[in-house]
């Protein structure tokens, strides 16, 4: 009994020291886990390497007012909304526009009111973060024809509204490739928040990326809720349970496209000592060090780039309706390398180039 | 009139065992106690008499710590006490035997007696010590019990004995008995009185609550009369008569059920044939019961409570599906009819528990008038409530049945029990039923209301109403009924002519189901 306690204390101590020193690897813990599964070996505390948004030549928009309304949940989701905030904040800093960000109520029932409030308050460009804004924006855009609107992840058929779309399948392809490289168990998982067409795009790209590296790697797909029930994007407990199941089932890498529910996936990964892949933001930078070592990479959907680019286009008169597509080519989509756990980054860079060059076409369904 | 007689028995201690001074207790909607004064001498049997609802029970609950007086003083053995709970009262030597026994049926006598006060030895219940103590108490006070018998196998009288023993076991020197004879048949009453006399001899003080005057005169050393919440007189049982006491209690002449000309016709209004109901376990609750009620007839059902009366009432009203047998109303088989259909066909109902089954306590009187008749005029017009009609009908009832209320918009729980009952009788009779089930129609109502209700039932009878009268009040049954059925364990064990039946005879059938020892009247 005492002996066991002593051993446990030693192990705990070694783990703690490992976290602090952030060394590459240690023999202590990996010996205890199965050799046929990838474990959390990532370095912790690495810094963001993404280039800051914007450049010297960006236009001066001082005096212009840009409003942004978050998706339900608002800031602090470590994902979508935070990324949007980074974009608009950079726009305020670099282009001197006046910004205002608002968060809808829990049911999202005042999205329209908030946008209307911005429109009547002199905000001549209004960004809605998330496709849920589409129906409301269509009507408000009609009421305020002189105001420019942009919607992240959505399309609204109004001349003064621009859809900011992403080639998520491309980024998902690359993290799928990374997952296949890292997996020792030869089976990986996917947790989608809600079974929407949008999230299915992530799934399709991810699967294609996995097969690109190794057609024999199995992909387990789980969705938290069916389409129409959007609780799947904000249910960390469900995310944790689902991911736990996947890890227990033998998956050693799980990619989540589940918004706030992803924090649960990370918790499950840390508890199981298995790898997880983040989404939308570079999630390595947002999680505590204990979880950082379990994050293989993130599919970065640069909502910040999209928001920033849209504001820039607005100032230069380039926001003319229709859609703007953000992909690997224009830096709207990327993958993260922090933690240094991707076995073959060069191969991924190579695949990325092939996609940019059009040599690989990633499926969307 | 009767002079207030101070108790002057020799050899009594100067300090009363219990003394209540100027007790006041208010409640919303019920008769409260005001300025109650009572002195109980040690080692005596002191009867507290009064009509149901006069405030006797409330008073005793205060003495037993179940309720606290709003003002006034309680003294036990000369010392002022303030009981916050029955535990305080027990600690001061005051114990109470409730009207409804508080025993666990599935435990033995011994277990019930020691429950909550188990003697312990090494952390275990010391059964042998308990057994010794119970035997000791039984011998001292003349209360023999079988300690290992299950309470559910005991008769009512034996259960009461266990209750008394339980209180004594807890060290009570002052015993409160709340209407102890209400649930007993005459023979059991005699036994109880013998026991109480024995207890008195052993120095126990007994406060005996009753409204049965013969018993009080036979047993008590002193009598205090309560009327309308306050003590109105004390009386000496050696000189007072039942008539004196009744007049003190009632404040007016005592009504007596009189013999009248029969109004019974030959038309059968209600025919019950072979009615049988079984419990979930298949035990017969109602066993092959058959009888008829003619137009203009009152058929009385006598029996100790729990011998099938409730089931019979429920089956007649359509609240319980019988397992066998038929019920005919005016020649039509209504056995499968819903309650509403039966009521619409002219079946009136005075339920045994008016508050639980007869009233909406938080609804105004005029809505209570509708209850049971909410599908018939004058209360409704088509699917709509006819508030005007219902209110007018209620006003009529208040007028004709002397319901004492400021108006018909007060809620039912603001009325006293007697007035609630008059409202119920009124609404049932005003609907001009063909037949009526009346269960304990005067239970808990004052004597004035009782007389009025009896008169109303008689008047309805003379206009042809067929009434089934279920009652625990033998005087009522004998006085009102044209025919009397005795039920025992779900069976009709005797059909008696009320004009010749005696209480002794009835009691015999009610307890044993046959007429042994019933005496010459059988």
């Amino acid at each position: 009994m005492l002996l066991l306690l002593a051993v446990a204390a030693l192990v705990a101590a070694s783990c703690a020291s490992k976290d602090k020193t952030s060394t590459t690897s240690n023999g202590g813990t990996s010996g205890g886990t199965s050799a046929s599964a990838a474990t959390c070996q990532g370095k912790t505390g690495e810094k963001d390497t993404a280039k800051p948004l914007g450049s010297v030549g960006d236009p001066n928009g001082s005096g212009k007012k840009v409003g942004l309304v978050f998706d339900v949940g608002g800031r602090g989701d470590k994902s979508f909304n935070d990324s949007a905030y980074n974009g608009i904040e950079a726009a305020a800093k670099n282009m001197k526009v006046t910004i205002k960000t608002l968060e809808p109520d829990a049911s999202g029932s005042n999205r329209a009111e908030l946008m209307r409030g911005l429109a009547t308050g002199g905000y001549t460009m209004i960004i809605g973060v998330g496709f849920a804004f589409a129906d409301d924006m269509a009507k408000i855009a009609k009421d305020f024809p002189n105001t420019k609107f942009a919607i992240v992840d959505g399309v609204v058929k109004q001349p003064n509204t621009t859809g900011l779309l992403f080639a998520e399948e491309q980024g998902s392809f690359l993290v799928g490739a990374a997952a296949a490289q890292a997996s020792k168990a030869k089976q990986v998982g996917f947790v989608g928040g809600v079974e929407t067409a949008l999230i299915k795009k992530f799934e399709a790209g991810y699967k294609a990326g996995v097969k690109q590296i190794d057609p024999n790697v199995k992909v387990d797909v789980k969705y938290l809720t069916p389409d129409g029930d959007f609780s799947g994007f904000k249910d960390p407990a469900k995310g944790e349970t689902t991911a736990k199941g996947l890890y227990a089932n033998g998956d050693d890498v799980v990619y989540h496209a589940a918004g706030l529910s992803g924090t649960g996936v990370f918790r499950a990964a840390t508890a199981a000592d298995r790898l997880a892949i983040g989404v939308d933001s570079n999630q390595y930078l947002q999680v505590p060090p204990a979880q950082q070592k379990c994050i293989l990479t993130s599919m970065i959907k640069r909502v910040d780039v999209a928001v920033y680019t849209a504001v820039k286009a607005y100032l230069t008169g380039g926001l003319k309706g229709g859609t703007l597509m953000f992909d690997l080519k224009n830096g709207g989509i990327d993958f993260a390398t922090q933690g240094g756990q991707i076995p073959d980054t060069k191969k991924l860079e190579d695949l990325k180039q092939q996609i940019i060059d059009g040599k690989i076409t990633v499926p969307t369904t | 009139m009767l002079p207030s007689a101070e108790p002057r028995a020799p050899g009594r201690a100067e300090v009363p065992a219990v003394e209540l001074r100027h007790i006041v207790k208010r409640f919303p909607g019920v008769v409260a106690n005001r300025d109650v004064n009572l002195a109980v001498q040690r080692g005596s049997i002191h009867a507290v008499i009064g009509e149901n609802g006069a405030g006797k029970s409330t008073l005793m609950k205060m003495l037993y710590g179940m309720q606290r007086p709003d003002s006034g003083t309680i003294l036990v053995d000369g010392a002022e006490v303030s009981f916050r709970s029955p535990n305080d009262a027990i600690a001061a030597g005051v114990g109470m035997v409730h009207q409804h026994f508080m025993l666990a049926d599935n435990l033995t006598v011994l277990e019930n007696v020691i429950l909550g006060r188990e003697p312990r030895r090494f952390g275990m219940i010391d059964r042998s010590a308990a057994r010794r103590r119970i035997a000791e108490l039984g011998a001292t006070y003349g209360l023999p019990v079988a300690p290992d018998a299950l309470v559910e196998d005991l008769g009512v009288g034996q259960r009461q004995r266990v209750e008394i023993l339980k209180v004594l076991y807890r060290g009570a020197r002052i015993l409160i008995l709340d209407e102890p004879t209400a649930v007993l048949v005459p023979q059991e009453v005699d036994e109880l009185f013998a026991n109480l006399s024995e207890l008195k001899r052993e120095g126990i003080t007994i406060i005996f609550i009753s409204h049965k005057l013969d018993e009080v005169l036979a047993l008590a050393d002193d009598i205090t009369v309560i009327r309308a919440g306050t003590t109105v007189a004390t009386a000496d049982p050696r000189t007072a008569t039942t008539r004196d006491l009744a007049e003190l209690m009632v404040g007016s002449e005592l009504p007596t059920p009189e013999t009248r000309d029969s109004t019974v016709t030959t038309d059968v209004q209600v025919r019950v044939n072979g009615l049988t109901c079984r419990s979930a376990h298949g035990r017969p609750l109602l066993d092959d019961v058959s009888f008829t009620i003619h137009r203009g007839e009152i058929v009385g059902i006598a029996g100790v409570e729990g011998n099938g009366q409730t089931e019979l009432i429920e089956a007649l009203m359509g609240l319980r599906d019988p397992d066998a047998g038929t019920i005919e109303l005016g020649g039509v088989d209504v056995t499968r009819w819903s309650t509403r259909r039966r009521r619409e066909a002219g079946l009136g109902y005075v339920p045994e528990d008016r508050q639980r089954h007869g009233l909406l306590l938080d609804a105004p009187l005029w809505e209570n008038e509708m209850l049971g008749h909410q599908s018939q005029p004058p209360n409704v017009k088509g699917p709509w409530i006819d508030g005007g009609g219902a209110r007018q009908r209620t006003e009529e009832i208040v007028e004709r049945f002397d319901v004492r209320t400021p108006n018909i918009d007060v809620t039912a729980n603001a009325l006293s029990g007697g007035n609630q009952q008059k409202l119920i009788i009124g609404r049932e009779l005003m609907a001009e039923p063909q037949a009526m089930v009346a269960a304990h129609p005067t239970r808990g109502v004052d004597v004035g209301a009782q007389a009025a209700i009896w008169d109303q039932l008689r008047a309805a009878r003379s206009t042809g109403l067929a009434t089934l009268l279920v009652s625990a009040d033998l005087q009522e049954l004998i006085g009102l009924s044209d025919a009397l059925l005795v039920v025992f364990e779900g069976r009709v064990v005797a059909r008696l002519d009320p004009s010749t039946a005696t209480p002794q005879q009835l009691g015999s059938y009610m307890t044993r189901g046959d007429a042994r020892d019933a005496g010459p009247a059988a």
Partner: protein
Amino acid sequence: MLLLAAPLLAVAVAVAASALVLLATGNSPSKVFWVMAVKGTKTEAVVSMLNRAGPYYISGVAVAIGFKMNLFNIGVEGQYRLAALLAAAAGAAVTLPAPLHVLVILLVAMATGALWAVIPGLLKATRGVSEVISTIMLNAVAGGVTALLLEQYLKAPQEQGGYTVGTRPIGASGRFPSLNAAIAHLGIHLPAANRLQAYIFVAVAVGVAYHLLVWRTRFGFDLRASGSNPSAAEASGVDAKRMIVAAMAISGAFAGLVGLSQVLSEAGRYTSDTVIGGLGFTGIAVALLGRNHPLGIALGALLWAFMDAVQTPLANEGLPKQITAIMQGLIVLSVVVAYEVVRRTAARREASELRRAMPAPEVVRA
């Protein structure tokens, strides 16, 4: 008097308590309350309040019908969701003259809500299953069924790049116009972007129907009797089981109308954003606030809607909008306490009045 004093007192207590919360979290209560009082009463916020109050009211009535006979219909949530979906789909599938079209949609919604609510009613009547448990469970089932039906059968084709899942839009004949033009005649000119929805009239109609049904019909009497004293109701001829099923069906029928305000107006179709979640639970709070009284529920719904509507100006001012949610909770809590205090006071008063009206008989006559 007393009846009004209770809610007013409760609101005052809630305001005081939330002021303390604001102070404790380093916010200025005066500023927050100023915004609520001034911006919250501007036309825009009032329109938003009225638009919200309609569904809250209907939901409150649906819950209150259950409460009237001691049934706790927590399932309004699932009932309106399913009903709104099927009604929206039905409305999009047919084209009829204007009043008829709207009527068909409303009837489909009521029928769906009623049928869904009858399930827990039957379970309770025949099997004794607590409606609290079954309605909670059926909420989850309704969420799943709705999502599945929408995804599998009722989904409108999505535009390229559009991800909003919804039914096809209902034709103009099946929608309510905004009331802006109507109130312009009254001299109140709303900006085009600020639409006062005509759905408020449905709420008014529901209120009138509720009042008539519960207080003016035989059925309503049976319902109230069953709630007030089930065994007395049964003895009076009420079929308790049938009553449970009927009450749940009617509660569900009203619940079916809860989610249609957006579907029948601006949005014209069902999506997860036009039919928002949580209205069923709001209805429970609103019914409690209003003590199941038709006008009381209306006040409760307006108060609740006001609290939600001022979230927007509060957010605009950068003030913590969460305070309104705290206040809503505090108000319900204090109202429940206040009503109980008032109830006891009233009972005492009635009793003492009765004692005065009927003095006890003369005391000692001996």
